[in-house]
């Protein structure tokens, strides 16, 4: 198992009209990341299409595998790099069943994917109108570590990250499309999820302006002790790198033993109370 992994956090803006442009832009960043010897490059939520595509999602969503996942697989193979990115995923069984999905691709092909569990449908968000929620929270045992995926609003629910950690996840990757007014929430929550689970958290947010929403970027890599290892700029296309050392997980777990101190009986009570909320 590789102990040290170099990550590239690639926050890019999308073109919500010329969709082919987005994958070309991803390719440019993948080339740059590989030149810097990155093992893994991470792109934002729904990066293949942009976030605010509304009804056009029905024509743009693709199955996995599909034309876009194959293009990304080719890029991963060509550059011998791992890639995480977001896309609208169409069910292979039904035409109007779409998921907001994060895909993990290795040089050997698509390794796995995660379907967003918590779909924001409030304020400017209308995800439940378009997406079906996911039901699984897998951790992927890859050659570059045990990786768990969450998407944007998922991070408001500590149980998503906790569940991944309990499954042995060492690196939680949160891809996001967060508009500017919510920056302070995410800056707090990304650090909290890392600290409370003693886990690495890589957060990659969209940038650019879509339908009047301004996505703030600010992607960051956070160590299990809450230290910010890398921080991207706000508001502009930017790629930053960071190295994670899985050996640090054991040291932090000893210093802040939150996993040791978990109280499962509280979860039982929480479940009962949540059902009756």
């Amino acid at each position: 198992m590789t102990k040290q992994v170099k990550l590239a956090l690639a926050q890019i803006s999308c073109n919500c009209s010329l969709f082919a442009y987005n994958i070309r832009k991803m390719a440019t960043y993948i080339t740059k990341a590989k030149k810097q010897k990155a093992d893994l490059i991470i792109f934002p939520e729904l990066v293949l299409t942009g976030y605010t595509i509304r009804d056009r999602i029905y024509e743009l969503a693709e199955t996995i595998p599909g034309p876009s996942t194959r293009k990304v697989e080719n890029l991963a193979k060509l550059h011998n790099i791992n890639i995480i990115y977001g896309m609208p995923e169409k069910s292979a069984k039904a035409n109007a069943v779409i998921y907001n999905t994060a895909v993990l691709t290795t040089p050997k092909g698509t390794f796995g994917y995660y379907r967003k569990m918590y779909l924001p449908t409030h304020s400017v968000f209308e995800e439940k109108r378009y997406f079906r929620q996911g039901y699984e929270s897998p951790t992927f045992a890859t050659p570059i570590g045990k990786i768990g995926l969450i998407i944007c609003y998922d991070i408001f629910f500590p149980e998503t990250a906790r569940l991944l950690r309990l499954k042995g996840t060492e690196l939680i990757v949160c891809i996001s499309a967060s508009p500017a007014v919510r920056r302070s929430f995410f800056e707090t929550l990304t650090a909290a999820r890392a600290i409370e689970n003693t886990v690495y958290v890589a957060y990659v947010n969209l940038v650019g302006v879509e339908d009047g929403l301004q996505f703030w970027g600010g992607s960051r890599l956070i160590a299990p002790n809450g230290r910010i290892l890398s921080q991207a700029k706000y508001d502009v296309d930017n790629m930053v790198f960071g190295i994670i050392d899985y050996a640090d997980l054991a040291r932090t777990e000893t210093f802040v033993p939150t996993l040791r101190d978990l109280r499962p009986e509280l979860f039982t009570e929480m479940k009962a109370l949540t059902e009756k909320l």
Partner: protein
Amino acid sequence: MLLTPSILKINPAETKQKITRFIKDYVAKTKAKGVVLGMSGGIDSSNNAALTALAIGGNKTYGLLMPEKETKSQIDLTHAQQVAKQFRIKTITIDISKILVTVYTSIPNFNNSNLKAKGNLKARTRMMLIYYYANRENLIVSASSDKSETMIGYYTKYGDAAADIAPQQDLYKTQVRQLAKYIGIPGPIIRKPSTPALWPNQTAEKEIGIEYEKLDLILYGLEHFMETSKIAKQLSLPARTVELIKKRWLNSEHKRRTPLAPKLAFRTVSKDFRLPYNME
């Protein structure tokens, strides 16, 4: 939630950055050659013009000064010119009095005493000229509406709010004042009473019946789902005053939407045709 003036405080540097980025991005994506807007010499249009110039350059910002005989104010014209000079904005001055007279005299039984109907003709005439320049020069039309006036519908439907973008529409009037001060709009423009200038001696606060400092706090409370009774209590206002503002807000929704249409088919424009802005 406490409705005190501090709740309306903005971070002017950040707000300026967001608005200018928004304008710059829209102009770039639409491949327009610039932005055109009406400049009355008031705070809203001065601020909007200045922000536009800061975003894309004054040489790509066209300010139309459109005085008319009944409401012409030399002070307002001077203020508009002052802002244009300060931010190097291109200006075009068109006295619309003749156009208006032609319109008035072309209408059978024109009612000169109906201030609202007549006043709205002025706002729509200005809109017509702004769009003329937009089409002629491939420009984006920018409305200077603020959130206070937009929420209570204090504007002319398809008049001053008719535009492609409204960069400061999410800022209450008192917040526009903060931003205007930050970007260097001259003090007299910020301090003078706002007026739509649809008829002589018209001032916004007199017509609305409440000063903006209080109106903005009422609207902020409504925006945050507060009950009218609680807003009134906190602001030491009669409950009726707050209820009337709420009524103005709710009753003016028709101004903020596209025209209401009956649902007849599979997908209906403005209802469930939910499309993104396409800027190919």
